[in-house]
């Protein structure tokens, strides 16, 4: 993900922006890589973001996810966005946690995490 913190902030100007990242399934979610870039290391609160993803994904090639209030993609909502929600399809290689981080209009960050069990990995080999 070639996105610097500055880009993320610029994208988020005047709008809520959202990042969705798959991370290895771990009990604790470390702030790593793109996630840290996006938040600039700011503390995140749980709640305020809802992440809808299947508990079990049959095919990792196309896992439907939906983020309300959203690594994999950064959604920046413009002035005409009807609501701060969007849905898309992502690739997951295996069972892992999917983390959604939202940058709110007031500059704070919130996150939601959901573990998705993947039956067939979707990243090819």
């Amino acid at each position, binding site marked *: *993900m070639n*996105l610097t913190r500055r880009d993320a902030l610029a*994208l988020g100007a005047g709008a809520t922006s959202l990042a969705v990242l*798959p991370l290895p399934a771990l009990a604790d979610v470390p702030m790593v890589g*793109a996630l840290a870039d996006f938040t600039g290391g700011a503390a995140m609160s749980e709640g305020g973001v809802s992440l809808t993803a299947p508990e079990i994904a049959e095919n990792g*090639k*196309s*896992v439907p996810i*939906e983020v309300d209030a959203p*690594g*994999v*993609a*950064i*959604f*920046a*909502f*413009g*002035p*005409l*966005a*009807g*609501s701060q*929600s*969007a*849905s*898309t*399809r*992502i*690739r*997951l290689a295996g069972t892992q946690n999917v983390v959604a981080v939202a940058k709110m209009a007031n500059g704070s960050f919130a996150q939601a995490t959901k573990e998705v069990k993947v039956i067939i990995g*979707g*990243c*090819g*080999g």
Partner: protein
Amino acid sequence: MASGVKPRVKVPKSASAGEVVTIKTLISHTMESGHRKDSDGKVIPREIINRFTCDFNDQNVIDVMLAPAISTNPYFEFQAKVPEAGEFTFTWYDDDGSVYTESKKIKAG
């Protein structure tokens, strides 16, 4: 330009002023991640759509940065506020520099 790229967009035909409408978009694209290898063990070069934007009468609705983890044939569903009659323009930016656009008019009423 990657072959077989075809954008498809679903927008209601009309909306009352200020109404929030749901928009669905899909573009046929292989979204080659750059992590896969071919049968000779060579890495297949990355070729994805890296950005998608939707604007209504030149005002931004959504601007998405895509990473290789987005599935083949990227699909997006989101909501947009329609303040007046006008036109939605959808733009997808390919890694190879190609830009795919699609536009849909929406009537007031």
